[in-house]
């Protein structure tokens, strides 16, 4: 019997290997390999003498290289790129969609996704001429869900990349005060909240901080789950107590970084990093370039590890949408397919799993992080991470939640009172909207609209 199992296991392993090799050869070419990408794309419609101009709106850097690569492959297509400021990008897109003047393609970040889940104007990528569902198995389900409409009837964007929330720390400072410096060791140390508080207290006594704002625990906990569940019920519960407890401790212990020397024009984050007082900071994997740029003198001292309290947080994502009113949907979809097979930028974990695997296997060392293979870490963390669905109410609730926490912190309210009040407040504010949204979704599910 054992012999039989052994033979079967061998056969299955061989099949997996063969399949994996084949997949890697065809679907996982090295990032930037134009040849491999070109051979993998479906044929475009016959070329015409007139040049196709695809308008693309983004808010992030790093698109030029990809566009050039694509245009080399498709000389008849010109990608007209517009880069909006991050804080204006969402509003511009919404205005353009309302006026039906939106570009053919738009890149939506994780923070804006909720605003697009319950509006019209974006093409359903599961419908022809798009074929998004053919890639469904190659995208992590949780990430796939982030681009589904609120009523689950449409796929309004295709995920290109995701970013786990990670802990950036100064190994040199931790080592100075006897705390673990190895990433995994430190992560395991910080799984215990008291250790993390102890470390905060110890470092704070010496002018170093591991939290850049008082509600950092809230921030960490919130990165692991959405504000609302599928029925728009407020998800804040047990972990909110922990977060409030830790935040209150930080506040009571005076463990917050002091910003008395902050220059008005300079963002607090940048100030703290530049001042060298930040021993630990929690940001998305895609932000490591920004951290490096802000603290170039500390190269080689930084390390990256997972979040404290054994949390797997989701920091951000990039998804691309096609305007419902685009005249070049076929070309737009071709461009999306081109982009899904490329890594957008360092630290961005590709949504398309074959490429993600490729990045992980590449295992390149990063000197800024002391030769640490951060990309591999990011992929690993991304694989463990569970992205969550965003709702139209998230933006509105997030602000109320932050204000409520600040208010309770100022009042120094006990956790039970604070959380109860906050939840009650949020429910009051959102109950009507929630009912409306749920009713609408029920109506739509009943009428099964074909377009929205």
């Amino acid at each position: 019997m054992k012999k039989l199992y052994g033979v079967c296991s061998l056969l299955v392993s061989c099949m997996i290997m063969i399949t994996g090799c084949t997949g890697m050869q065809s679907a996982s070419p090295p990032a930037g390999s134009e040849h491999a990408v070109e051979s993998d794309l479906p044929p475009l419609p016959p070329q015409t003498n007139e040049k196709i101009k695809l308008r693309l709106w983004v808010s992030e850097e790093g698109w030029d290289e990809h566009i050039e690569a694509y245009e080399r492959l498709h000389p008849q297509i010109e990608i007209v790129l517009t880069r909006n400021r991050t804080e204006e990008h969402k509003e511009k897109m919404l205005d353009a969609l309302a006026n039906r003047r939106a570009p053919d393609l738009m890149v939506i970040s994780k923070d804006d996704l909720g605003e697009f889940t319950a509006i019209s104007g974006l093409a359903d990528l599961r419908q022809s001429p798009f074929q998004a569902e053919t890639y469904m198995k190659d995208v992590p389900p949780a990430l796939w869900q982030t681009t589904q409409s609120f009523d689950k009837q449409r796929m309004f964007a295709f995920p290109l990349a995701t970013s786990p929330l990670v802990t950036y720390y100064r190994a040199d400072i931790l080592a100075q005060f006897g705390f673990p410096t190895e990433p995994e060791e430190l992560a395991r140390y910080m799984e215990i909240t008291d250790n993390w508080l102890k470390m905060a207290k110890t470092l704070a006594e010496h002018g170093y901080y591991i939290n850049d704002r008082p509600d950092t625990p809230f921030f960490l906990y919130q990165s692991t789950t959405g504000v609302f569940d599928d029925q728009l019920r407020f998800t804040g519960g047990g972990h909110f107590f922990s977060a409030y407890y830790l935040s209150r401790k930080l506040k009571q212990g005076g463990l917050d970084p002091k910003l008395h020397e902050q220059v008005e024009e300079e963002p607090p984050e940048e100030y703290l990093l530049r001042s060298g007082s930040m021993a630990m900071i929690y940001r998305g994997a895609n932000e490591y370039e920004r951290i490096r740029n802000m603290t170039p003198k500390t190269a080689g001292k930084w390390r990256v590890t997972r979040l404290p309290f054994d949390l797997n947080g989701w920091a951000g994502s990039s998804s691309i949408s096609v305007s419902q009113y685009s005249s070049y949907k076929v070309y737009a979809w071709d461009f999306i397919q081109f982009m899904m097979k490329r890594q957008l930028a360092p630290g961005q974990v590709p949504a398309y799993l074959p490429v993600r695997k490729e990045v992980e296997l590449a295992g390149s060392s990063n000197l800024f992080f002391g030769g640490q293979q951060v990309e591999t870490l990011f992929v690993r963390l991304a694989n463990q991470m569970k992205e969550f669905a965003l709702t139209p109410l998230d933006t509105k609730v997030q602000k109320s939640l932050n204000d409520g926490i600040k208010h309770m912190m100022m009042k120094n309210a006990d956790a039970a009172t604070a959380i109860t009040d906050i939840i009650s407040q949020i429910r009051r504010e959102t109950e009507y909207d929630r009912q409306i949204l749920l009713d609408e979704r029920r109506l739509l599910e009943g009428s099964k609209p074909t377009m929205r």
Partner: protein
Amino acid sequence: MVIHNDRSRLMVSALGWAILTILFIGSAEWKVPFIFGASLTLAGVFGYTIAGIYGWRGMLPTVAVFLAVDSIMGEITLLDAMRTIEYLCISFLLPFRNIHSVVWALFFWLIASGPLYAYTLSQGEAVTSLPHHAYMPILMLASNGITGALIADILLTLRVWAGKKGAAIHRNKTVSIGSILFLLITLAVVGPFLFVMMIDGLSMERDVENRAYQMAASQTGHIVEYLKKQEGKEMRGLLLHSMLEQGKLREFLKTSNFEELMEITVTGPYDDVIASTVTHYPHDAYASWRKGGNVTEIEEGFYRWLPDNRRYTFDMMRWREGFFVYEQKVRDRPFTVIAKVPIQRYQEQISKDFANRFLFMILFCLLSLGLSALIIRIIMKYLSKLAELTTNLPDKLANHETLEWKPSPVKEFMSLSQNFRMMAERVAEMFAKLEGTNQELNEKTQMLQQSEERLNQLAFYDTLTGLPNRHAFTSHLQEKLAELKRDEKLAIMFLDLDRFKQVNDTLGHESGDLLLQEASKRIQAVIPDIPGAMAARLGGDEFVIVLPIRKETEASAVATRVISALTSSIMLDRQEVYVGTSIGISLAPDNGCDLTDILKKADMAMYAAKSMGGAVYRFYSEGPAEHAAESMMLETYMRKALEREEFLLYYQPIVDQDGCMKAMEALIRWKHPEKGFITPDKFIPLAEKTGFVLPLGEWILRTACLQHKKWQDEGHPPMPVSVNISMRQFYDSNFLEMVRRILKETGLDPSWLVMEITEGFTANDPDQALAIVAALNAMGIKLSIDDFGTGYSSLNRLKKLPIHSLKIDRSFVSEVDKDHSNASIVQAIIHMAHALELLTVAEGIETQEELQFLRALNCDRMQGYLFSKPISAEEMTEFLARTREDRRG
């Protein structure tokens, strides 16, 4: 002509069919709206009319055309199919049993259309309907069909009434007044019923529209205000169909839509649905609400939308799917508010009300019609009895049948019955009178026929001999002469019996008549076998035979046979006599074709034959014998004329110098029946020569004396009357005797009689003349010398004669004022006469100048046309009466 008429009739029939078919299809396709899809169609009227007039042969092509048009315009619906079957069936059934279309239509609806439609409604569109919706369409369709049949029946009845050929149902070509009355009453009830229902329906529809408009306008006003408040992200959310903003708007729409009477939708700038109270509509379809139906703008921004009619079997079901739409754009916002008010919501209530009214009205109509039918039945029953009683009334009355005039409680019928009864009685009386009159008339008619036959006999046949008379002969000869052909001849044989006068004079008139009868038989016996021959008696012993011949020998043969027949002895009252006959023959056209002329020539030939000794025949020819015959004929004529009283006396006044009538002269005239007046100079000389002057003179004298005595007896002033006496008469030995006898017979005083005699009367035997004159003078008769101056009078003798006056000859008087010679003679005569104490009379005065001259010569009496032409006795009587009146005056 017959073919032409048939062709024209066929063309008119085809044209009528075509017009009716067009009207039928037009009415079926385009209906008169009633309310919410209920409609009135006149298709039934034309369909049943076609079925009634043309039968199934006319109906078949009509429905074929109808179905073809229907399939071209859309599709053939259940209604169209059923309608086709209905008309075809009824067009087949109509000729049987003389049942009206309306009855067949009702029957068809009860057994076929009604159940089928009810089944269709229960299975199809109206499955969720209220009960009213189940029967309202059927009710309306049935009303349309049955009403159409009813109107068609009325038209067909009126058509027959107008004298057109009967339709399939009216084979007998007659219409009872009961049918007409019932149909007209039905029309009078159903017509207003339909009209009232239509007006009522339209009014209700208008009311519903107003209510819908008011409600929609009011409620959409709130929504418009809500949308005006939307700005910034909220407005953008709406444009982006944000579920949140859209849901909020939908919630507001729901709260604004009281009682959920409407479907409210807000659309965006691209006709996209922003929000709607309806969830089961596809949003894009809802936005373009105009699609898939017909839109009618009722007021600005207010419409009525109905789905395409071809999708529905019943139009009312189509209306159930329709709605009113109120559309309002939001100022300064890219939104439009559309409020749909389903007609169904109103239709249910309105249809319920309308159906109730409809049923009530139908029951009322049926009650009215039932009552009308009952009344008409009563009236018609009485009228039918009356008609039955008065059928063949004249025959019944003539056969003296007893008629039972039943009384009626209805005043008018009672009056009508009485009138008929009285009329019948009167007619019966008249019949009785008529029968008597008829009998009398028959008798008179019979008598009249007999009289007619007798008159005919008298007019055309001689009563004595039975032969055709002169009139019949003249007509026959005239006819034969006119028909005479080129190679034909006509012989006219004139017969005169020889010695007839002697027989008549010696044996008497009766024997003469027997002789004539026997002679007639023998003449008749000669010619019976000769076609076209005719024997006639002209009068006296004159007979004539008309004989168609080809040769003269044929006439000769007949003449010989006639002579032979009459030559043999004739037994008259046991006495044997021999007469014989002379025959003169003239031939037409040889001797002419004039009837008078040819007869005269036959007559002349007869005289010529007679002059040859009698018992011979002679053809007419020009010669001395004919001249002699003419004189002889004239003498004969004169004699006959005296018998036939053809002679007349005319009187010419003789006046004195003052123009007063002092005497008159009697002058003879001969009025021949064929030749007219014959002047005395034509026949007097012959009369003197033949001696006829004696009887003629006697007749003149007697007639003049009689007339003169009559005038005197009548009271006219007596005056002398002159009568001319011929020499032969004067010297006749019986003259004086004759004069005395006449004077005695007439009773005339001889002193008033003047005898005029020509001056030569004394030449032959002066002594005898003197003796006669003396005798006359002794009787008191005056003597006047006539035509004095033309003869050779012996003055010596004149002096001795007791004459009374001299009458100067007209040859001297003529132009005496101009002719000196005549004047001298006249003057001399007058002087001489005066010297002898004789009265002078000038005759022939014609001019005023002659009168003046004679007056100057002192002529005593004057006579001539200047004063008066000779006038008849009747005219003279009038003249004398007038003269007497003038004198009295």
